[in-house]
């Protein structure tokens, strides 16, 4: 089976250079060296992702692929764990574990 067959129908981006592929990416932004303690929800997001991996629901490479499928502006605007949230939602929807709109519905409940 070729890669293109896997890719067909999946959340993905075919680009010259992925949004995540940052080595040598031109930048004027200074490196912000301040320490940041993880917020509760960020720890939780990290844990959810790892538990999903432990249970074989989603693997690390699927998780990375999901992040890499973000549009450039969204990728750059998102914080680190916002990207993790994006990929969790995206890949779980792809696998039919979460239904489209299900999270929004829960938030409105």
């Amino acid at each position: 089976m070729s890669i293109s067959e896997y890719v067909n129908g999946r959340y993905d981006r075919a680009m010259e250079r992925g949004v995540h592929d940052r080595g040598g990416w031109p930048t004027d932004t200074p490196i912000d060296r301040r320490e940041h303690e993880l917020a509760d929800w960020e720890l939780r997001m990290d844990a959810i992702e790892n538990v999903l991996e432990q249970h074989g629901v989603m693997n690390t490479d699927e998780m990375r692929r999901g992040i890499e499928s973000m549009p450039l502006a969204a990728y750059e605007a998102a914080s680190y764990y916002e990207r993790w949230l994006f990929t969790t939602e995206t890949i779980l929807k792809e696998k039919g574990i979460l239904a489209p709109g299900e999270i929004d519905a829960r938030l409105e409940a």
Partner: protein
Amino acid sequence: MSEHEHDHPHEPITNGDEPPAAARARAVEQLLIEKGVIRCEDVRERIDWLVSRSPGDGARLVARAWVDPDFKQRLLADARSAALELGLDPGPSPVVVAVENTDDVHHMVVCTLCSCYPRALLGPPPAWYKSLPYRSRAVSDPRAVLDEFGVELGDDVELRVLDSTADIRYLVMPRRPAGTEGMNEDELAALITRDAMIGVAQPAAPAPIG
């Protein structure tokens, strides 16, 4: 290429102290637990493991290597096994490689593609390690990056930047500072910082006596 990057932690946007992502993350967790995909206890256990991680474990490995040449060779050959030997948890990564800074070579670690990091031994990666500017410039302008971190390398020192692109996790063994000859392992470990084991700092010099 974007002209404007916006990669700093967000200020609160709506609904009190949290970004919208916080509520979404909780909703995802709730839904997954209700569907039986994950269990609440597993999430709790993982959070407990995450908060238990600190650079102290990595520092113990390095301190032991500084005082015990045979252990140092074992650490350089197979850092994962060396960690297990000291009763430390090397984490899920199948291979951890320790690289040694010498008078002639200085190592620095990055993950340009995401944020791969030996977190079992060093704790959570600092925000700057995961940031777009570090991921970009650690490979293209590493001496300037080191300069910003306060590390000056001589022109005769080789700088080796390691981009963790696959399953291997890298840990830098910094050079033992002068003036530490009389120190025990615990005292040495206290000098070895997270940043020194990433390669963007030198270990703290010992406090002068008297």
